[in-house]
Structure formats: C-alpha cells, structure tokens
C-alpha cells in the first residue's frame, strides 16, 4: 500500500487524530455530566402538566381491557388534577430492567415506574427513587388503608419505602375439578402430603393423565414453589441483610421435594424437565394434568375455549411440608409471595405531589374495583378488597392468598438470588435429564457456588 508523501501524510494524520481524540473526550465528558431535565413542570403545580408512567403494555387477549383500564385512570387523573398521563410501555421484565438502569444512569426518563414486588429491592438499591415520608403516605391515603402484607415489599423498612402498591396478583394453585371428582377427591389439597396422594389418586383413576406438572425450564416460574416450601420449613435465602444462606438444609429439602415429584412420587410427566410455563398450561388445557402450582387468575381467561374451561378451580397452595402434620417452628404459611406491582417515583421528577396524586387516583376504591372488573387484578386496599369480595364471592381464595402472602427478601441482591436459584434448578434438571439420579451432594455444591456469588453482592460496597 502506498501512502501519500510521508511528511504531509503524517502531519495530516496527527492533526485529524488529535481532533478526533478531543471530540471523543468532549463527548464523553458531556455524556457523563448527563442531563437532569425534569419531564414535568414546576414542583407542586398540579394542573396542565404531563406525567410519564412506565407500565405494562396492552397486549394479548387482554389488549382491549388494558386500554380500557388505562383510559379510565387517565380520565380520573385528569378530573382530579387537570393534567394528562403519557403512558410508556414495557414488554418484559428485561425491558423494565433496562429502563431502570437507563433512568438511574442518565437521570432522565419516565416519572413513575410500575415495578414488580420482588424486584423492588433491587430498584430501591439504585438510589434513584424517592423514599416516601409519612406525609407522602398521607397524600396517597395513608398506610393504614392498605392490606398489611402488601406493604412489606414497599421498602426495606418503614422509613425507607420507595413503592406504593396498586395491584395484586396472588399465586394460587389451579386444579381440574372433573379429574378430581373422577378420583373421588372433593377438595383441594392443603398439605404437600395431600398434594402427592391426590396426584397419585388422579393418575390411578384416569389413564394417560398426570397428577400435576412442573416447569423447571421456565425463566420466571420454578423458584416460587421452591421458595414456598423452604419458607414453610422455616428457611430463608438470607439470614440477615448481609448474610446469604443459599445452601441451607431447608432449601435443599425444598429442591428435593420439587424434583421428587418426578423421580420419586411420579406425579409429573418426566418430559417436563424442559418445560416452560406455556407447556404446562397447554397440558392443563388439554386435560392431561390435574394441578398446576403457582398459577394466577389470568389462567381462567386463557382457558376460555379449551376443553377444560368449565372445570378449573382455584385454591390456596398447600402450606405444610411433606410428611408433617404442622409447620416446624419458624415456618411461615408462604402460600404465595407478596405479589403485585408498585408505583415508584423517580428522583429526577421534580413534581412529586403530582405523582402522588396519580398514585392516589390509582388506589382509590373506585379505581381498585374497576381494575378488578376489567383486568382481574386484586385490590390492594382493605376497602377495595371488601368491595370486590361482596361483588364476586369466587375470589375468596385469591383474597386469602393475598392476605397470607409472605414477602420475599427486600434486598439489592434479589436479582442474583432469583437468577442463581433458577440456575441451580436448571442444572438439577439437566442432571436428571441426562440419566443421573438425584444427588444431594451435587445440589449442595451447586448451592454453595451460588451462595458465593450472592454473598459477593451483599458485601461488596
């Protein structure tokens, strides 16, 4: 390759190279300073503003319902304040993660975020959201109006709440009444021993049917039943805010029971090791399985038009470990995680009163009843729950589940805990799928490895 005359070439190169470097540094500096533009107007002004809310996108069979609900809230908000809402949509937990990171790193973005209960701990750790004072709570109607269980995931402790709950989606078990009746079972199991025996009975009574199913390969599901069982035995992921306990005997026992449904009690199809939630629901909808653990009210709508549509019923999850008649000391019922969504307000939003007004509108009794009617989400206020119970007695199981729900750890390392547990579950499934027997020592070593990772995140500054 021939270059231009060297002297001239080098000179050019030097000059332009320096200019490029300078441009880079300048751009980097500007980007680092970031901008702290606030998207809503002067602090305190309530009318004529726009509030940006980042929330679940309307999609799927409930698309019209979402739009109806959002329109209702927007109208109510406008009537109360004279301001408008701009909805910003997330399509998945991934994009919520990304949006939170972006907001934290740049100091710009939506004013209010809808955050899932378990995820709130990680969100709070970004220090990018307002902590709510007693005054702030009064503006949304006071802490006392909420179902106490829902407040547990609002913050690490009472003085550092970052989120206000606005909807609840408790987890319950779903079962097929017709298959149960054929096996002579009249009510849902309340202990895990009954879960196993009911499953076996259903299998005996109907050929080609499995008692239950599970989904170890699902990205979001499998940690919940494992967590429930562990809590019922009195265990937890953390022994203190700074100490991880991922290799506790209770968690090991929980994992053993979860997989024993396959290798020991044979109540789940062994093909399940690669299943995600979608496959589980498909099998249930075809009448091939009789129970699903940790299901939600939305299953009801998904089963419309399928053969089992009239046969599905819901009940709280079993809350006594296998082989026992009561929970050991320190065990919690843990029938459902505290599950729902919270509104967190970003610190770069200069107009906190407006955001609080929005939250107040969303948690008013009228809005909570509307939310249930249109979306099937449970209310989070006691008044809301009472109103809904009166109107639809069938939601009794969900109300019980919500009121008896146990919170997951509110910690910055929650993301790691959840992912770590999913990894361990995946590895165990892999072992079983490749012909190895369930090995307690393998599980223990896997848990210890994850414990190291989680502990790192708890202790690093």
């Amino acid at each position, binding site marked *: *390759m*021939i270059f*231009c*005359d060297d002297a001239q070439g080098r000179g050019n190169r030097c000059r332009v190279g320096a200019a*490029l470097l300078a*441009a*880079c540094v300048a*751009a*980097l500096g500007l*980007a*680092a*300073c970031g901008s702290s533009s606030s998207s809503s107007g002067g602090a305190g002004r309530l009318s004529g503003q726009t509030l940006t809310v980042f929330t679940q996108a309307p999609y799927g069979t409930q698309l019209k319902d979402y739009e109806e609900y959002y329109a209702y809230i927007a109208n109510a908000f406008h009537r109360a304040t004279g301001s408008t809402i701009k909805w910003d949509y997330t399509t998945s937990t*991934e994009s919520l*993660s*990304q949006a939170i*990171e972006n907001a*934290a*790193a740049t*100091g710009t973005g939506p004013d209010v975020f809808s955050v899932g209960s378990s995820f709130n701990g*990680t969100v709070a*750790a*970004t*220090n*990018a959201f307002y902590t709510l004072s007693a005054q702030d709570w009064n503006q949304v109607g006071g802490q006392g109006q909420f179902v106490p269980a829902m407040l547990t995931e609002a913050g690490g402790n009472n003085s550092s709440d970052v989120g206000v709950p606005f909807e609840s989606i408790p987890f319950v078990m779903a079962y097929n009444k017709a298959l149960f009746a054929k096996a002579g079972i009249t009510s849902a199991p309340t202990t895990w021993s009954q879960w196993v025996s009911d499953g076996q009975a259903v299998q005996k009574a109907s050929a080609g049917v499995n008692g239950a199913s599970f989904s170890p*390969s*699902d*990205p979001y599901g499998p940690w919940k039943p494992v967590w429930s069982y562990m809590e019922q035995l009195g265990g937890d992921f953390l022994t203190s805010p700074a100490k991880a306990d991922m290799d506790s005997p209770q968690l090991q026992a929980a994992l053993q029971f979860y997989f024993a449904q396959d290798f020991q009690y044979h109540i789940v199809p*062994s*093909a399940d*090791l*690669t299943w*995600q939630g979608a*496959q589980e629901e498909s099998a249930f909808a075809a009448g091939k399985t009789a129970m699903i653990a940790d299901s939600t009210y939305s299953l009801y709508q998904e089963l419309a038009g399928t053969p089992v549509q009239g046969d599905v019923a819901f009940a709280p999850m079993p809350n006594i470990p296998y082989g026992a008649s009561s929970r050991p000391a320190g065990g919690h019922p843990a029938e459902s995680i505290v599950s729902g969504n919270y509104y967190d307000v970003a610190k770069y939003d200069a107009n906190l009163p407006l955001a609080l007004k929005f939250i107040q509108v969303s948690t008013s009794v009228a809005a909570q009843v509307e939310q249930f009617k249109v979306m099937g989400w449970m209310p989070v206020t006691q008044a809301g729950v009472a109103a809904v119970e009166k109107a639809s007695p069938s939601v009794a199981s969900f109300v019980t589940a919500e009121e008896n729900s146990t919170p997951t750890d509110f910690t*910055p390392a929650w*993301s*790691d805990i959840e*992912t*770590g547990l*999913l*990894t*361990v*579950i*995946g*590895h165990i*499934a*892999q072992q079983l*799928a*490749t012909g190895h027997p369930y090995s307690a020592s393998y599980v223990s070593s*896997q848990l210890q*490895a*994850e414990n*190291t*990772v989680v502990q790192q*995140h708890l202790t*690093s*500054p």
Partner: protein
Amino acid sequence: MSVGLRTRSERSGRVPSAQAPGGKSRARRKHREPAAWLVAPGALFFLVLVGVPLVIIVWTSFLKINVSDLRTWATDPFAALGNYSSTLTGPSVLGVTVLQSIWISVRFALLASVVSTPIAFFAALSVYHPFRGRALLRSVYLVPYVIPGFVIALLAQIAFLNSYGPVDKVLAALHLASAGTYWLIGPNAFWAMSVTEIWEVWPFMYLLLLAGLQAIPREQLEAATVDGAGWWARLRYIVVPQLKGVYALAFGLSTLYHFGNFTLPYVMFGSTPPDSVAVLPLNIYFQAFRGFEFGAASATAVFNIAILVIPAAVYLSITRRRRPA
C-alpha cells in the same frame, strides 16, 4: 472491443499507475484527493454512535459499578484490573465462568461457519446461470435469514421438545435416537442450537458469495468455455480463485455473527440456559441486566472484543499479503 478491455485490465492489474512514483502520480493525486471526503459522513456517524459508547465501555470496565452506583457511573471508584480478574475466572450467576463461555462460543461459531460453507457455495453456484424461476428460487433461499431470529428460536424450542416436538418424533421413528431424548437440556442442547443457527444464517454467506460471483467478468468464463473447459475446470481455475477473497470475508463475518448471537440461545433455552449453550453474550447479558454489575459486564465485553480482534488481525494480515500488489 472486449479484447481491448482484457489487455487493458491486465495492464492495470499488474501495474497500477497509482504506484508509479514520480511527477505523474502527484499531479493525479491532486485530482483524486477531493473525493476522499466521501468517507466523512459515514465515519462521523460511526465515530459518534459506536466510537463514543465504546470509549465509555472501556472506561467503565475499570470502575467498580454496582446497582447502587449507577447514578454516578462516570466517577465511580477505580477498580483497575479488578473487574477483569473477577469476571474471567470468578463464579458467575450462570454457573459457568467467562472462560468456559468463550470456549463454547468459539466452538459454536466455527462449527456453524464451517457447516454453512458447502450449503452456501452450492446455493450460490446453482443460481448463477439463468433459468426460469431463478428469481423466485433466489428469494426463497433468503427466507431463513429473513424470518425474525427470535421467532426461529421459539420455533426451535417447540420443535426440539422431547416427546412432543417433531424432531424427537421423527428421529425416534427413524430409529436414529430414542424417543423422549432431551434436546433442550444437557450436551444435546449444543447440537440443537447449532443446527438451528446453521439453518437460519447460511443465507448470509450465500448472499456474499452471490455478489462475489457477479463480480467475475463473464468473458473469462466464455473464453474458457470456448477453449473447451468444462464446469469443473471453470469452477476450479476461474471461479474459486476469484471467490477466495469474498469467502474469507464471509467466513470471518459469519463467525463473528455467530459468536455474538444473543437472541437464539436466550429465547430458545429460557433464561438460565443449560451449561452446554452458555455462550459469552448470555454471560454478558446476565452480568449487565440481571446482576446490574455494569463494571464487570464492561470488562467482559472488552475482553470479548479483544479476543475476537486477534483472529481478525491475523486474517487481515494474511489477506493483505495476498492482495494484488
């Protein structure tokens, strides 16, 4: 006259006038320089939208940034090489170290490129000559590449389901594998992913080869035919030598593409994938967006770039020597 063209291009091929030293080239250079500015717009966008983020990544790879430090990312404490040492061999939330991920990615990328080669070559060669329906066939060959990757990953997940998916059923019927074999867990997952990737991405190489084929002057083929060369001689002496450059490029780009493919393993295997498919992009993703460990993720990304740049540099120095002087 074509004859004239050939001799002139021979001449320019052997002795490009730009290399002739002396006054003539300098006068020519003054004529030519003005057009160099054509590079500027592209270079500018590239610099701003890729260069600056790259500088940011390199900068943050030396900082300690966790979920609580995101707000002040630019001024976070210096971690020197701490991120690098902790990510490379340290435990990761995926249960697979970064070094192991790199090895999986390398095997995957090379396998996919190597197997795509004969398919792509065949396809490009077979649609070179005109025939009725060629336009349609050329477009059909593009279809796998055009369907969104995320959809193919989901389709593959359903297709490879043990017991229920068609792959398992067909292989069992043909007695090539036992019924109920797990394709989405364990070592088999690697092969399932590779097959899916090959099916999806071979048209990439095919397109580049097709463009390369068009660049071969037709007179050479005509002359050879007249002189009695059959398809094999034409292929061997005219086509393949001239395709070598394009093929090397296609192979390199293809391998880089496979290496960086995040969508396929992520969607096909759900999150927390089996060990055999824990490729490097997944590791980076989990560090950055599940663990919020931005500093560590940047370090992994920088390392990723570094280890890919080495073979790229080797490739470039090889082709540089082969370029017509």
